[in-house]
């Protein structure tokens, strides 16, 4: 009896609780144990070991000029690529910077290479023409864009942010004549990269001077570049272009030959910067690139006049040219024209050294103009006898090349080819009796003719300036000192100009 009462009491005691539990709780909670990310075991790839290149001492006298463009609101500074600049200087390159684009054609005359880094301000038509002709004449053009330096935004108080040109847009306008295109993308690799998806590793290279001794190259955010020329490096299959999110074979480089020069487009600026140049073999590439832009020295043509010489120059009067006061005035004009440093110019009738020289000479008005043209060649051997060079000069004919800008269809280039690019056009000077017909100048009597010739010998360059009489030659020098070869008909390395009858100071 008591037992049943106790049982009843217990039931009564527990029932509300059980009912409550039953009312509110239906099941055992479903909880899960969890692990945390194991950060200490995460393996982070380290930067590839760099191939160090000892720093070389620059030569006392630079051998060439490398023109860096800083006049197109470039999204880069030279201080960022200081190691690359040091490589250039070590190879005899003198760095010059364009701070305005007033006359790029003039600046290019003294340059071996023109480098523009992430330009975002458009090039003028005149600039593009000048650059094109510069490359055609043997110059090197380096254009580098970079997805991290692609555009500069400015805050507009009314419309928010305003965007200007991108460096891809500007670069492509410059590269269009060379059939090179920088894509408005960036390359990335999610599976095989250098610490970040945008740091793409390249391990396959074409055989080229620019890729010598490179086993591994890393770009730290780069555009893909396409052309009909050399691509220099290719990626592995896991690299994607952001433009399509498709994998494929991409290259951040394009090397195209154009005329006697070359154009190199680089889709990444960062691999040359101090921060990334010491990664992998980027430094080797920078060193090779420095070689590429400093060597070989560009063979100057009259289109580069008056920036034909660097270093000492011999002024050599021949035939009827006397060394007198008037002549010294002419020399001073030449000194100014050539932007020669003090002591660079020497005057001598004797040619005992192998320095570059300028021959000031005359020809006979009775000569047939055709003979004058021939004489210009012959002036180097044997006339004038006293100035004959010991080095046989047979190169003039070969250097009679047009300086006009070739049309694309005229320039048939094979990738990596090295075709003779220019056509000889001496026939454009029509000789008739004692007159010579110069395009743009009409018929000129030989007495009105001034001739300028440029001859490259083995280890020297010779410029010949000649007219009918010493007075006319002096006047001719003064004219070209003032106006350079403007108004002259330049065909390759010979220029025909109309000269006045005296050596009076020409009016500018």
């Amino acid at each position, binding site marked *: 009896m008591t037992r049943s*009462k106790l049982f*009843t009491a217990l039931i009564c005691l527990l*029932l509300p609780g059980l009912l409550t539990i039953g009312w509110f709780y239906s099941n055992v*909670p*479903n909880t899960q144990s969890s692990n945390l990310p194991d950060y200490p075991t995460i393996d982070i790839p380290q930067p590839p070991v760099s191939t160090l290149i000892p720093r070389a001492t620059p030569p006392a006298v630079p051998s060439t000029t490398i023109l860096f463009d800083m006049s197109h609101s470039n999204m880069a500074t030279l201080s960022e690529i200081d190691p690359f600049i040091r490589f250039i200087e070590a190879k005899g390159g003198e760095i010059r910077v364009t701070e305005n684009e007033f006359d790029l054609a003039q600046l290019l005359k003294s340059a071996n290479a023109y480098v523009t880094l992430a330009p975002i301000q458009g090039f003028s038509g005149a600039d593009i023409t000048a650059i094109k002709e510069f490359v055609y004449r043997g110059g090197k053009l380096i254009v580098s864009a970079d997805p991290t330096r692609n555009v500069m935004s400015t805050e507009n108080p009314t419309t928010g942010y305003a965007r200007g040109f991108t460096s891809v847009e500007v670069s492509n306008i410059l590269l269009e004549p060379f059939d090179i295109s920088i894509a408005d993308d960036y390359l990335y690799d999610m599976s095989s990269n250098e*610490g*970040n998806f945008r740091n793409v590793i390249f391990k396959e290279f074409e055989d080229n001077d620019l890729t010598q001794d490179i086993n591994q190259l890393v770009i730290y955010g780069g555009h893909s570049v396409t052309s009909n020329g050399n691509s220099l490096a290719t990626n592995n299959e896991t690299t994607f272009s952001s433009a399509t999110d498709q994998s494929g074979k991409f290259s951040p480089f394009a090397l195209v030959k154009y005329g006697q020069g070359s154009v190199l487009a680089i889709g990444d600026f960062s691999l040359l910067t101090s921060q990334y140049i010491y990664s992998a073999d980027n430094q080797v590439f920078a060193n090779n690139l420095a070689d590429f832009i400093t060597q070989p020295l560009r063979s100057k043509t009259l289109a580069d006049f008056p920036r034909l010489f660097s270093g000492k120059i011999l002024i050599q009067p021949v035939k009827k040219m006397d060394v007198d006061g008037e002549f010294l005035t002419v020399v001073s004009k030449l000194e100014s024209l050539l932007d020669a440093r003090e002591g660079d110019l020497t005057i001598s009738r004797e040619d005992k050294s192998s320095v570059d020289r300028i021959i000031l000479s005359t020809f006979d008005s009775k000569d047939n103009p055709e003979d004058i043209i021939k004489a210009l060649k012959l002036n180097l051997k044997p006339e004038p006898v006293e100035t004959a060079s010991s080095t046989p000069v047979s190169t003039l004919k070969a250097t009679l090349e047009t300086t006009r800008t070739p049309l694309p269809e005229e320039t048939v280039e094979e990738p990596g080819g090295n075709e003779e690019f220019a056509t000889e056009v001496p026939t454009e000077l029509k000789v008739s009796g004692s007159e010579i017909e110069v395009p743009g100048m009409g018929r000129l009597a030989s007495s009105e003719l001034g001739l300028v010739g440029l001859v490259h010998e083995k280890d020297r360059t010779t410029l010949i300036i000649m007219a009918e009489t010493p007075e006319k030659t002096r006047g001719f020098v003064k004219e070209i000192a003032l106006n350079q070869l403007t108004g002259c008909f330049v065909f390759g390395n010979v220029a025909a100009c109309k000269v006045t009858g005296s050596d009076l100071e020409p009016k500018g």
Partner: protein
Amino acid sequence: MTIEQQEIKHSPWSLSQVSLWILIPLVLGILISLLIPRPAVGVIYLSDAIYYYSAHDIIQQLTAARNSAEIRAVVIVMNSPGGTVTDTESVYREIIALKQQKPVVTVIEGMAASGGYYAASATDYIFAKASSEIGNIGVIGTQPDKPAVYEDIYSTGPYKIWGMPRDSFSRELEMLKQGFLQAVKLGRGDRLKLSDETILRGEIYSGGDALRAGLIDALGSQSEAEAKAAQMAGIRHYTVKDMFDVAGLKETVVAPMGFFRKDSDGNISSYPAKAGLYLLYIPGLGDNQ
């Protein structure tokens, strides 16, 4: 004596006995049952970037949920673009700790991007709207400045001012990315249908796509999330409580400190005010670069 009187006299349950053996235990039982906690689903609203102050509040609420017998499950209502790495990781670890004891369900309202998803991935079940923005798995940061020295500031080492070389920064970024990936894989397990490479692309998915990719478990609303949380906790007839109140945070709200940068007009941008590493989605970042 009637028959009725005889039955009463011989019954074992006299009034006093009924009181002693039934009523008193029953009353006691009722009183004791009142001590049984009425289950509740706690709701935590994460509707901000995850930075020091917002993380502090969230962690307070998570701790309160863990310590409360009444709160049997938690629903995190998420609308966050993520935030700082450290604060996100703090929230993540507190969610993991809570999850060991009580089910935690996330419902993504507008967005659970980057660090927001990092935190969400720790929870047991994730709901989202079809139009929610989900994912953006990855790390973002601004490189430290190039090392420099100053005339008036002296330090004892080249990185005393800058913290780390620029290259170390990118390595750390990569390490954090791998950790993020691990967190997502641990949280989602077999439900995840994306490859590592695809996950790490950092894409933002709509709710529908996220469901197909296994980044979430279902499309649903907050009430469905609460029901799911209750079901996982094995409770019914539950109440829903705002954990902000439960944690007593109403009175302890700290003045918010600006996480996002303000422009000169006082407008808040989507950029963090300070440079550093973030698990953060910054919409339109490229437009202004």
